[in-house]
């Protein structure tokens, strides 16, 4: 197994999208594609499955809601019930209308923050993480496709050039 990969650089998102389809049709594996902005349909063309991050957000939201209910029930009903403004705190259900705002806020709080933390962890981004894009131009206006070399590298290079790549570079990957 060779550790060599080809970095093919494209300068247009439509050309890239077509190239991705052609490369996959020619039975080459696409290791990664780096783009400066979200190219619609790219992940589908690359065969990447859908993300489940929205589901996690829903679960985190439920956690937040549960936490809010538990917290206010403990503080207002169980631990230290008070008669506030003639509205005694005997049961959570009866006092619930006054607790709705905070139940909602904590649902949103948990869902948003935990989802973003999940996103950062899954995509391995965060403070002090070093960027690993192979070419600095991929955050500006160039699109980079990383294809592992199998078989004849010259042939693969010319094939990628034919799909519209403006540059190709063979890189030793460790």
């Amino acid at each position, binding site marked *: 197994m060779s550790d060599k990969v080809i970095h093919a650089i494209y300068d247009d*998102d*439509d050309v890239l999208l077509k190239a991705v389809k052609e490369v996959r049709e020619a039975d080459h594996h696409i290791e*990664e594609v*780096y*783009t*400066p*902005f*979200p*190219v*619609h*349909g*790219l*992940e589908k063309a690359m065969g*990447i499955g*859908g*993300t489940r*991050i*929205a589901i996690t*957000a829903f679960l985190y939201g439920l956690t937040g809601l549960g936490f809010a209910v538990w*917290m*206010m029930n403990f*503080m*207002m009903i169980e*631990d*230290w019930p*008070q008669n*506030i*403004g003639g509205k005694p705190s005997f049961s959570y259900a009866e006092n619930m209308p*006054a*607790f709705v*705002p*905070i139940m*909602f*806020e*904590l649902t*949103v*709080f948990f869902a*948003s*923050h935990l*989802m*973003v933390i999940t*996103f*950062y962890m*899954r*995509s*391995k*981004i*965060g*403070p*002090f*993480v*070093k*960027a*690993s*894009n192979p070419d*600095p131009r*991929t*955050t*500006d*206006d160039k699109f980079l496709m990383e294809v592992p070399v199998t078989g004849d590298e010259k042939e693969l290079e010319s094939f990628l050039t034919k799909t519209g790549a403006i540059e190709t570079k063979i890189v030793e990957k460790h």
Partner: protein
Amino acid sequence: MAHYEAPIREPLIVGDKTYHDISNDIAAPIEGKANKWWWGVFLLALTAFLWGIGAIAYTIGTGIGVWGLNNKINWAWDITNFVWWVGIGHAGTLISAVLLLFRQKWRMGINRSAEAMTIFAVFQAGLFPVIHMGRVWNGYWTMPIPNQFGSLWTNFNSPLLWDVFAISTYLTVSVVFWYTGLLPDFAMIRDRATKPFQKKIYSLLSFGWTGRAKDWQRFEEVSLVLAGLATPLVLSVHTIVSFDFATSVIPGWHSTVYPPYFVAGAVFSGFAMVQTLLIVMRKVSNLEAYITRVHIENMNKVILVTGGIVMVAYLSEFFVGWYSGSSYEDFTYLSIGAATGPYWWAFWALILCNGVFPQLLWIKKLRTNYTVSFIMAIIINIGMWFERFDIIVINLSRGHLPSTWTMFEPTFVDIGIFMGTVGFFFVLFLLYARTFPVVAQAEVKSILKSSGDNFKRERDNK
């Protein structure tokens, strides 16, 4: 045809731009040097900020007796400013979240700055309740923790505590939403930076963003879900702020129309502040290609709609108060008593600034004019400050017992703290304008082919 957009839609990016041009234009203010104007305004804002710090220090050191509050009017400028600033914040979330859900592409040119404005404005807002506590060192008592004398908890029946949760959720979620959107743009600055110090800073800020296909997929999903969460959140925040008044029994405050009316007013004032900032910024930072006449006009339309809602609320409050036949209602902030009483100037400032002048925006020529839009935005900012002043001060000045009727006179400390927060806000915004990518360039690049001037022209001429 993937990038097709109806020819009738005006381009959102004018001039013959390429992807690389967008990077250059957005990076230019960061890589360039500040001019004299920037320094002038910055020093002015900094002076106001320092004055504000002095006034706050004096308040904390001596007590809130240094304000103009009296026995009857025990809330005044501080809460006025609090509600004003929170309201201003709402436009940023509306632009970034609600317009995202409605797939409005014009949000992309302005969402970054609008969200920055949101965060800076909510920050100012948060200062006021904290200062108003008097003993700020006990501020942590608002957290759900038992106090040190036993196991007495915070009161979850109180709208003021709901505020604590609403504002802190709003502030932190806005920061996270904003920062996640900033990552690709920081990465763009990082990858083109030539100065080592700059490279280091932006490497740190960009969190190692690389733009992998999977990351973009998650990025878009996260943005969408955050928008879905932020939309009800932003509505809840000003609803809860209005509960501070609506759940009380003061005439003029005890009103069920408050939540929707406050939210509409918040969006109204927030868009006015976005206009104020962006009309200047597009010129100073050479962003005319990205913040166009279309953006300004669309924002003016939102101002017209929300201003209309606010005006209808005023009229219904006025009518229902009068129709109730209750003598207390004759002196609320929207009543004959207010219009002809000692606070007539505040009443008419509200009606003219929020109700009458914005109607000029129905005329297309005026709402597409930058100067008119800017002046109108300033008028609305003033009008919305008066709305909160009227709600709080006029209503408190005329209570159930006529012998307690009184007036409010702000001291130099009240004025100082308010000017201080205005200064602080502009200090933050000016620093942001020089160090942050002020347009969401990655998103703008993704609509260049559909909404860019040159691409549209090429397609339409085919």
